């Protein structure tokens, strides 16, 4: 089963260049390990939430707002999609994901991907 690990990170805290370098190294190690084991299905970092645009369609009218959907301290900063046997395995991977992508402290939300009937896996 596939799980999405959504990385939420504080953007208002600054990390030192050394810290950012360490985060980058941790991500590279994790990408290497998950792809070697054949469980990596996707992963990307996002640009800062200041680059976000939110689109809402209300009765056919398109509303565009500048900024992310939710104004919270911790913003979506990136994701992994991994193939896991069960939630315990997914949680073990999530614990290895560094959360300081945007500089601050953060957390990882683990969500199972809903499997659609026509998907071929």
């Amino acid at each position: 089963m596939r799980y999405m690990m959504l990385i939420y990170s504080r953007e208002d805290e600054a990390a030192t260049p050394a810290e950012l370098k360490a985060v980058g190294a941790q991500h590279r190690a994790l990408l290497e390990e998950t792809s070697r084991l054949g469980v990596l299905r996707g992963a990307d970092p996002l640009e800062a939430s200041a680059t976000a645009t939110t689109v809402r369609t209300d009765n056919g009218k398109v509303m565009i707002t500048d900024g992310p959907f939710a104004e919270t301290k911790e913003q979506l900063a990136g994701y992994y999609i991994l193939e896991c046997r069960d939630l315990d395995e997914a949680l073990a991977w999530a614990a290895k994901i560094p959360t300081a992508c945007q500089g601050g402290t953060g957390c990882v939300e683990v969500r199972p991907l809903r499997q659609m009937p026509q998907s071929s896996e």
Partner: protein
Amino acid sequence: MNELAAIVESVFRNESGRIIAGLIRAAGSFDRAEEALQDAFAAAMASWQTHGVPGNPAAWITAAAQRKLIDYARREQTRRSKAGELLHFGESSYEAPDEDMSVTFESGSCEDDRLRLIFTCCHPALNQEAQVALTLRTLGGLTTSEIARAFLLSEATLAQRLARAKRKIQQARIPYEVPPPPRLPERLAAVQSVLYLIFNEGYVATAGDSLVRCELCAEAIRLARVLLELMPDNPENSGLLALMLLHDSRRDARSTRDGQLVTLEEQDRSRWHWDQIAEGKQLVERALALRSAGPYQIQAAIAAVHAEARKADDTDWKQIAALYGVLSAKQNTPIVFLNHAVAIAMSEGLERGLALVDDLGSSGELDHYHLFHAARADLLRRMGRTTEAADAYRRALALTSNAVESGYLRRRIAEVS
């Protein structure tokens, strides 16, 4: 007829946790397992009335429930083949297509299944309210309405909580297994804390149906027995069961007929249940001999020391103080520090105890904690400083909403005023 209902109820209470554990593994689903078990009990009522109660009712129910599961699987397969290639987007009770509908009953003992079930119900990915509800509903022999009454919830709210938890287990695929060794200590601690929470919910005097509360304690003790039976080598499992038994042994003595709190010191010790005390003491002694004392064992040891005193004046406070000292190194909570200070007051002198309590309160952090003021008040009362004691009792009274505790504090205020 009533006799039959009583037999069915007793099978339900004592055996359903054991039976359902295997059904869940076979079905890969809590809901289907519960449905099968319910159908089997309904079938039992009908069949036993005509044909008489079988020699082994639990085995009969198990077999009937397993047949029901096979029926469901067949029906589901037929439904699927009829549905053909139709897609069911947005269907709320969506089943993953790779989920195996077949039912497997072989392999694995019943004990393994029950252990799996305990760990799944107490999985940290479920919130603690859900863990408690699920543990009581699936492992225990309580009905949804009994659990709802015990927790002062509406049946609908509890049903919703259970449904949400079961959906998460299914959809997020929380595993049905005993955690591997590296994660076991942490996960076992979560199970123990759920069982202790259930016990305390029944034991701590708050509002609610007292009969159901009594049942919660009995249920927690039963589940602690199951856990110890399944994992006999863990001394904290023994400690937990011992702690529950030793506390529960005082149930008849700790309140008056009209529900007033009777302190340990004032209790009529002849009304304690000495069979439970004997079992609790034996369990904790055996556990402590393994020399890996955890918080449950130490608390049970403290309760055992209290139980050894035939009258309150004989209490070995020195030993209790020493045990609280050990406990406070493992559990640095205000309640443990307070109890430690009180034990020192009782063994080494009230002044010294009061100084420790005041020291503890000097940071102001405990100003809003009613037990802090109640403990201070009790020491001041013993020292004869009645005006200060009354003040402290009043501060405690202002901070508690528990009717039984309020009643106790009012009585003390009247005594010292």
